[in-house]
């Protein structure tokens, strides 16, 4: 059993929190060996400046609040922040936006995150099916999932063979496997599927996981946005 994950989940449940913070979700990913972007929470402009310089530009700033699930809709996300001046401006702007759109929301801080370079996007998720329990989902990001519903499922826990089947089963597989040269690191994707399966099997308290998007590179991958919801 993973102590960090166990601690985060226990604490959240004790506080009656069912949506984990993005930073917590990514810490859980890290403990399970799922590669994510670099990020830290800043509580002040100074901290934000320090973190952004540590991580390197460009960065992304996102609001961190247990009450806000849809960050973009509240004006809580600013992408492609290129320098210290923009960090200071964006930090203030996010806080102002959120204060206006969601005045009652509790604010933990602002997350400064590495801006992951664009690449092939995939989604890995997990959820509680009413008949089969924990189920793993996989699809290619963006239009493929939303418009074409090009996604596959397997009931957890999954074997390596089943994870491989999942990746190969989506119709968009040729895009992933290197249509016109641009190859994606499929073995890392398979590894992420197996680790998500391990995570939901270890923690039945988890009701939903949404790693969306995950940027897949020629070598390696990075979870850019992560959400974890717990059962009430």
């Amino acid at each position, binding site marked *: 059993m993973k102590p960090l994950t166990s601690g985060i989940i226990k604490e959240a449940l004790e506080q009656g929190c069912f949506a984990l913070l993005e930073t917590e979700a990514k810490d859980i990913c890290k403990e399970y060996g799922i590669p994510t972007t670099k990020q830290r929470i800043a509580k002040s402009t100074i901290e934000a400046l320090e973190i952004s310089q540590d991580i390197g530009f460009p960065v992304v700033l996102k609001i961190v609040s247990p009450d806000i699930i849809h960050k973009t809709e509240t004006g809580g996300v600013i992408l492609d922040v290129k320098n210290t001046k923009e960090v200071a401006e964006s930090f203030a702007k996010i806080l102002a936006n959120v204060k206006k759109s969601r005045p009652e929301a509790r604010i933990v801080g602002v997350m400064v995150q590495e801006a992951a370079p664009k690449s092939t996007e995939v989604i890995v998720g997990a959820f509680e099916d009413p008949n089969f329990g924990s189920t793993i989902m996989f699809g290619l990001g963006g239009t493929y999932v939303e418009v074409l519903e090009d996604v596959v499922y397997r009931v957890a826990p999954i074997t390596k063979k089943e994870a491989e089947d999942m990746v190969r089963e989506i119709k968009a597989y040729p895009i992933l496997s290197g249509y016109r040269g641009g190859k994606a690191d499929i073995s890392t994707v398979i590894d992420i599927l197996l680790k998500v399966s391990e995570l939901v099997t270890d923690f039945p308290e988890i009701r939903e*996981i949404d790693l*969306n998007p995950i940027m897949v590179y020629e070598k390696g991958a990075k979870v850019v946005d992560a959400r974890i919801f717990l059962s009430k």
Partner: protein
Amino acid sequence: MQGPKSLEPFFDPSAVAVIGVSNDPTKIGSIIFGNFLRPGFRGNVYPVNPKHKSVLGKKCYTSVKGISRSVDLAVIAVPAQAVIQVVEDCVEKGVKGVIIISGGFKETGPEGAEREEELKKIVAESNIRIIGPNCLGVYNPSSMVDTFFLPEEKAGRPKIGFISFVSQSGAFALSTMDWMAYQGVGISKCISYGNGCDVNEVDLIRYLADDPATKVIVIYTEGITDGRKFMEEARNTIIKKPILVVKAGKTKKGSVAALSHTGTMAGSDKIYEAAFKQSGVIRAEGFQDLFDMANTLSLQPPAPGNRILVITNGGGAGVMIVDACEICGLEVPELPSHVQRKLKEQFPPHFSTKNPIDLTGDAYDLGFGFALDEAFLRYDGVDGAIICLLLQVPKLTVKVADIIADASFKSHKPIVACCMGGEYTANVARDIEKRGGPVFPTPKRAVDAIWSLVKYGENLKRGDKR
């Protein structure tokens, strides 16, 4: 498997009580009672109805408790309000299995649901097993247990065979049985379990997995109650015999409560699809598909791989078969030169020997025999064969049926036939079928059938590894 909670009494009881029999022969209880009076049922049968002293010329009991000898199975066809009392009497009497035909339970609303909860309580607190309520029950032609309340002249009963059929829906079970009887397809056991308050698809898979008379298990379901148990039981079973499933109803009941995009698919049919794949269950798309595959799986061995040999005397039909194979992931590999050489030595030069082997309009009975011998029985580079016969040509006769049956008998690999044509063709096809070779009227159906044998072979191997 004769433990206290065994399902054996449902399938081979030595004494049966039918509760709710009356002098009106069109009543459900009376039809079922009549079924047990037919020749073939070897046990005793007792009618029960508090209102009658005798029915249909037999002594009638006021309660199951009044029967002096022991009773294994009780079939209940009384109004819903009376069911609980009758089941309690059965527990007291020591009846092992009860089939509740009566409706009026959870399918009707809260009052019925409460009644069904009471049944569950009785099951939990005693050794009794219940099939139903709201079902047709059991048909087993080898012991002549038949609780289907439809008169035989309108609803045919299939002969003894190797397929066992488990159905949530009574109507689907009934129409399927009638159709199977009409088609001459045999059945081992048919179970309509209705609301499944106790015995459900998982219990029945477990029972049929160990039933030597069942070679293929066919399931019709609209939704599985415990998906995990189903998968576990299916995984244990498919290493012994294949499971085919038809799943109807594409619900999205989970989607309302989903928090993220990922969650919107909870409860969807796609999860069933995944679970069936993972547990090695073969899913059929519809009725015809289901029985083509069930019949084939009960008659032919699993294929050791996905390489298919096609022997035909119609070039076009051969191409259609190759297309259909390709679409469902079956290979049609070219035969190696040493095999082709042997075929060429025997055949005129215009016969194609690659794969498909095409004997053209000059095809003759022994030509099919020779091709089967050299390119299939003696050659292990192919795992199954489709023989596509156009029987309209001058030199092909009914004798080709013997040749195919003979090859099928000698082979540990599967052979299916495709015969396209009219009346003469249909007669020869029936001849092949009588000898245990599945025959289909179209290339696509023949390919789907052999696909199920390939899938079954794959599942057997996967079962080993898990």
